[in-house]
């Protein structure tokens, strides 16, 4: 445990002196702020158009009745998960192990009395902590939302839990891919490809119904994240993320062990 904390601390410290982390955090906050703002504007406008039509015609032809804060939260969290994380996560994970391999510091870590699982977890928690720090300023948005009246703190909470689980799964995948190469660009591109696939794999599947469609939908990050964004915490979503996490971290640990067998 001591080693895990030491490695995570070192990772965080290195993040904050590297331009990549600042670029990623800036991009994250700009995008998420933009999405939040445009959603508030859009749904508030839609709601007022609905009200206007109801007032004039007695019913609305274009719009359905909806609860503004709920729709904003749902769309914000699912958007955040799909687009913003997708852009930022590979930047944060690409160097985690690839950089250690390139710099030769992996040799230091593996000749120290550190187990490869401790190294894996240290890296994982270092990156996850950065994501938490990165997401913290977005809490301000909900303060603004609360000024507008009725809102649901419960959905904000489940939304954040969902994002945290999603971030953890994406970091674990990025960490594993980062262990496969010494080249951070290869690692970043590999992670982008994998995350795009995992986010959009269900996009083409919903036209028909079969067990395969169900399976592919189950694999997709999108549907699981959507549940949390709607304020639902379901065992099946938590199991899904937990399984993903354990598998990716296990693969990372095996991959680190296998690096030692390679000739360099």
């Amino acid at each position, binding site marked *: 445990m*001591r*080693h895990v904390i*030491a*490695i995570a*601390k*070192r990772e965080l*410290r*290195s993040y904050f*002196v*590297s331009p990549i982390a600042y670029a990623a955090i800036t991009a994250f906050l700009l995008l998420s702020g933009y999405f939040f703002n445009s959603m508030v504007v859009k749904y508030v406008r839609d709601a007022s158009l609905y009200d206007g039509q109801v007032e004039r015609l007695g019913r609305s032809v274009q719009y359905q009745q909806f609860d503004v804060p709920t729709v904003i939260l749902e769309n914000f969290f699912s958007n955040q998960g799909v687009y913003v994380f997708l852009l930022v996560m590979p930047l944060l994970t690409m160097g985690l192990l690839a950089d250690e391999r390139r*710099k*030769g*510091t*992996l*040799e*230091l*870590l*593996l*000749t*120290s*009395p*550190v*187990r490869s699982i401790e190294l894996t977890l240290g890296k994982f928690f270092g990156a996850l902590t950065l994501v938490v720090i990165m997401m913290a300023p977005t809490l301000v948005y909900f303060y603004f939302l609360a000024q507008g009246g009725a809102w649901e703190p419960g959905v904000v909470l489940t939304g954040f839990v969902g994002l945290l689980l999603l971030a953890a799964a994406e970091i674990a995948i990025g960490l594993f891919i980062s262990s496969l190469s010494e080249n951070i660009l290869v690692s970043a591109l590999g992670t982008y490809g994998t995350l795009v696939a995992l986010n959009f794999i269900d996009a083409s599947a919903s036209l028909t119904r079969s067990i395969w469609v169900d399976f592919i939908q189950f694999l997709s990050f999108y549907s699981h994240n959507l549940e949390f964004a709607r304020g639902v915490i379901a065992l099946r979503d938590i199991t899904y993320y937990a399984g993903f996490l354990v598998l990716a971290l296990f693969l990372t640990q095996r991959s680190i062990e296998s690096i*030692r*067998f390679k*000739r360099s």
Partner: protein
Amino acid sequence: MDSRCASAGHVQIRVASTENRVVGNFRSVISVQHLTKRFGSHVAVDDLSFEVRAGEVLGFLGPNGAGKTTTMRMVTGFLPPSRGSVTIDGCDLLKEPIEAKRRIGYLPENPPLYPELTVRQYLSFVAEIKDVPRSRRAAGVERAIERASLTEVAGKRVAALSKGFKQRVGLAQAIVHEPPVLILDEPTSSLDPKQRVEVRDLIERLRGEHTVILSTHILPEVSQITDRVVIINRGRVMAVDSAANLSQRLRGREEIAIEVGGATAVALQALVSTVPGVAGVRIEETDDGRAIARIESELGVDVRAEVARAVAGRFRLLGLRSESLSLEEIFLKLTGDGPAEAGPHVQS
């Protein structure tokens, strides 16, 4: 640091040769037995065995690609061997890797640095992962900084340091947890001559407190700082001995050279050949009337006095020196593709 490993203490020293004979009960701190590493069909290290005693500095010498780095990576636990065992201060590296690794300080060929950290932050991190207790960590880091002469740059980022300083940070990293064993892979190879001397002095200061294995291909370094040398080539041990002993034993015969004025080659040859004990003479004549004679005799027979007396009677003796085999020549003799040496030269 607790010492959980069972067999720490006195270990019988075996001569690392085919006969595997016990030569004494030294305290052996590093014991390498039948270490072998295969990469596919390529055998990088082939049945390597040697012992290092407490406080000794062992030099690892061999041409590029001889298996030096592979051996060191196996001794530090980075690379798992295909066969064989490594024992560090009584801990079996394969059975108790965590215990064994606590006892090793390792400087790979390229120092493993985090350029974005300051020297102090970096050393503190290394101390942490090397299990230096929190209460001793700060003091340990300061001690390593001081010993590696890094005081003036301790607050600077590693990225901003010169190559020589980076190498010293690498050394500080290896000693920060005060390990009994230090393994240094070519610690001076990429440095300029001044930095090289500084790093060498630093290693000299570490002698005694640590048992050291260091690899190098810089030959003068070997005779300067090592107690014994392991010469390896193509993954095999060619010789284990002190540099001085190797030089003597490989020579086969004694050789002296004299410089004489006012002598012709024929006359000098005839005169020197009659001196008792002389086994062979080669004469080189120079343009200005001087001649150089290289005189061989059996091992252990010193003919200098007789030769000097005989020559001084007829010609002007300008110089006389004993020729010894340089380390370069030993190295080439043992690792070259030329006439093979008869068997490995091993003496413990």
